[in-house]
């Protein structure tokens, strides 16, 4: 028996991905998804959002500031 509405499902996606739903809630969520392309797509887009953030470039230190920091570390007084 699937009584979840889409507007509830979209508020549960993170709890679902975090495995924070109760077994009964999770079952209802998964059942809804099986029948609902819109929510299935929404969940997928939340995943893609997280993946896009993961792909943001993380600039390393420049060689200069790395060397300067190591120098400061080396020479700091005890």
């Amino acid at each position, binding site marked *: 028996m699937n009584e979840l*509405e889409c507007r509830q499902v979209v508020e549960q996606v*993170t709890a679902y991905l975090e495995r924070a739903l109760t077994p009964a809630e999770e079952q209802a969520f998964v059942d809804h998804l099986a029948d609902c*392309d*819109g929510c299935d797509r929404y969940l997928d887009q*939340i995943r893609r959002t997280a993946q*896009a953030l993961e792909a*943001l*470039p993380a*600039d390393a230190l420049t060689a200069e500031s790395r060397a300067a*920091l190591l120098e400061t570390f080396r020479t700091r007084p005890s």
Partner: protein
Amino acid sequence: MDDLPVDSVLVRRLCDRDESAFALVLDRWSGGMHRLARSYVSTEESAAEVVQETWLAVIEGIDHFEGRSSLRTWIYRILTNTAKRRGVREHRMIPSDEVQDTGSGEPTVDPRRFQSAGDPFPGHWWEAPAVWPAPESGVLGQEVRELLLAALAELPERQRIVIALRDAEGWPAEEVCELLGITAANQRVLLHRARAFVRGKLEKYYTQEATS
């Protein structure tokens, strides 16, 4: 990536002025620190300076580190404080106690996208979310990258920290809770609201792109 030594070993080596230990954390964490700092300040240069300043404070303070949190959490706390000060100075952000995190009960998806009582399927989509173009393999386009940075910068601070650390840096939930001093449930709400917000920005971008 190899695991770092456990905190107790790492901290001991840092206090013993072991340069290789310092190089290890420097190389491992600076990238992620830069990425988080970037969401507070207006330029890459400014973010780089925040990272630099943070490491100087770490060098200064490591002998007094008491291990009440993980080393990484301690360093990130310095980072966020440093970044916040600079963000305020650059008028990039308002001090966070003046900003309300949006209420956790508010819907994260525009209610108008769902049918109301009296419509054929109350609570269900009027129209399913539009399909997004296939993911670009690995590398983000410049536009998407800028859109994501702008979206992060727009988020209330705690949402921004949670989504940056969880999704961009891959931190476990527990460590984010520790950094912010919040419960697991609270962390999840912040992450949820932040993801929904950023998803909305991507949706707007992809649908505009499709119709332009």
